[in-house]
């Protein structure tokens, strides 16, 4: 079954001096987020940007895929902490995504954890959708 999720954005004025807002999304989880070009390409000043939302989407998707892989391998995670950093070069596009994950996974070796994380990075739908990003890195380690 296909699942749709919609977001609504309003923009006023031109690109350089105008401003916009992510008004609402299907779930209602976010809304009223300001966006503008300066915040996107220079100092964020507490404003989000397409690249930050992509980072959030990728970290989210990766964490789910990894938790699934670990449970299937008989080692469900107690906790996973993932960060995604998206690099944006204005005029060129998104040049790199760096994923970093720390896991609390009872009874698992570092090597197996790294392998599971690599598989999650390859298989999660957002990774596939972003396969055109020139560089995608992964740093996976177990806690403690």
């Amino acid at each position, binding site marked *: 079954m296909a*699942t749709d999720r919609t*977001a609504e954005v309003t*923009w006023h004025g031109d690109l350089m001096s105008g401003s916009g807002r992510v008004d609402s999304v299907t*779930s209602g989880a*976010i809304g009223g987020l300001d*966006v503008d070009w300066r915040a996107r390409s220079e100092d964020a000043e507490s404003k989000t940007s397409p690249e930050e939302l992509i980072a*959030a989407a990728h970290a989210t998707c990766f964490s*789910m895929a990894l938790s699934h892989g670990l449970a299937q391998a008989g080692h469900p995670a107690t906790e996973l902490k993932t960060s995604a950093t998206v690099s944006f070069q204005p005029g060129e596009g998104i040049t790199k995504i760096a994923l970093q994950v720390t896991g609390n996974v009872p009874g698992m070796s570092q090597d197996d954890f790294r392998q599971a994380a690599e598989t999650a990075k390859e298989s999660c739908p957002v990774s596939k959708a972003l396969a055109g990003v020139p560089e995608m890195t992964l740093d996976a380690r177990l806690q403690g």
Partner: protein
Amino acid sequence: MPRVQREATVTWEGNVARGSGAISAATGAFEELPYSLASRVETPDGKTSPEELLAAAHAACYAMSLAGELAGAGTAPDHLDVHATVTLDQVEDGSHRIVASELLARARVKEIDADTLNRLAASASAGCPFTKLIEASATVTVNATLEGESDGD
């Protein structure tokens, strides 16, 4: 222009079916957004999902790109409304794939005709970095209309 980095952090607890996560943005624009498998593929119930965040990213990216195209043509918009709908679907091998992102734009712009708007709307999608990327997996469609415009007759 220097390279820009934007970071988000997710904490996940438990397995995929019954576990849950929380998403925070490094800028502080949003914090501890809850999400789960159910919110991703069933009823959102107030929780976000990767695809919803991609829809927000695409709408935000496209709105900026369209504002840039319109301003470049000498017709900066008074107001743009952009909706992006991202579709996640199960494909033949049983895996999930992001198959579509549909952009709907409504523009309030002085002195522009529908043909010019359509042309700029298409080049705005081509120029939006996110469109270029997601086309690896999804079909991107663009539909732009002028707000409050009579047909000019």
